């Protein structure tokens, strides 16, 4: 099974993508499966790290939290832009010590931090696990460290590690 399907998650995602781009019919399911399996064999030749997902049930929780945060920060950043120079903005950098080491989880954290307006991933040092982010409206530095660590890092560690 693992020889035939080295990356079941990738194969499934490719099949879903094929079906979304075309239409759901028996022919497309067959064709999409063949292409997805062939692509996952090609991927196996590259030997990337295989992500291990331990807690599937927490993924919807993560997606929910991210959607709520994207919505809230969209409102917050819109407000900041509309107020313009009349509002006092305090942009600044924050260093966040991370204990998360899984590469897939870090990549997902990068997507989350980038996708939320108002925070931008700047730099990550793999040797000491320090992440540098830039925050558009930095009021409380410790609150941001706390937020990233408890809201996202803990959840990502539960999912991946």
């Amino acid at each position, binding site marked *: 099974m693992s020889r035939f399907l080295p990356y079941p998650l990738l194969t499934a995602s490719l099949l879903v*993508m094929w079906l*979304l*781009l075309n239409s759901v019919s028996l022919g497309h399911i067959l064709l999409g499966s063949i292409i997805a399996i062939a692509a996952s064999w090609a991927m196996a030749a590259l030997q990337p790290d295989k992500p291990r997902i331990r807690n599937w049930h927490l993924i919807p929780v993560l997606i929910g939290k991210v959607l709520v945060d*994207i*919505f809230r920060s*969209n409102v917050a*950043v*819109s407000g*900041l*832009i*509309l107020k*313009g*120079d009349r509002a006092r*903005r305090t*942009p*600044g*950098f*924050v*260093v966040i*010590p991370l*204990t998360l080491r899984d590469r897939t989880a870090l*990549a997902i954290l*990068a*997507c989350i*931090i*980038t*996708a*939320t*307006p*108002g*925070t*931008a*991933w*700047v*730099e990550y*040092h793999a040797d*000491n*696990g*320090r992440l*540098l982010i*830039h925050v*558009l409206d930095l009021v409380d530095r410790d609150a941001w460290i706390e937020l990233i660590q408890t809201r996202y890092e803990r959840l990502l560690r539960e999912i991946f590690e």
Partner: protein
Amino acid sequence: MNGLEDLPAWAALLVAFLLLLGSGLTLLGTIGLARFKTFYERVHAPTLGTTGGAGAILIASMLFFSVLQSRPVLHEVLITVFVVVTTPVTLMLLARAAIYRDRTEGTGGASGLPGDEGVNDGEHTGRE
């Protein structure tokens, strides 16, 4: 546009609202890009377009074509996924280039770079 008259009023209203919301957010993002003063502040503004703006427009598109064709049309989800997955790549390239410039020049945003020391010296030792 054919078949537009078949669209029920509630769907038309909702689609129009979402399109306005999405384009409004994208416009706000570009205004922010012009208004903000430093590079690091500017980086945040276009994110409005890639998240809220693109999101609302894509939901509008899904709703419009799903109602019109009486079946779920969901391939816009793929656009969302690819936008979310690819934005960090360009953002990191730009941000790291900017921070490299500021560090080597020792000017510009260097005074606003507490993270510079924070990352490289032993000041913030993280959690014990």
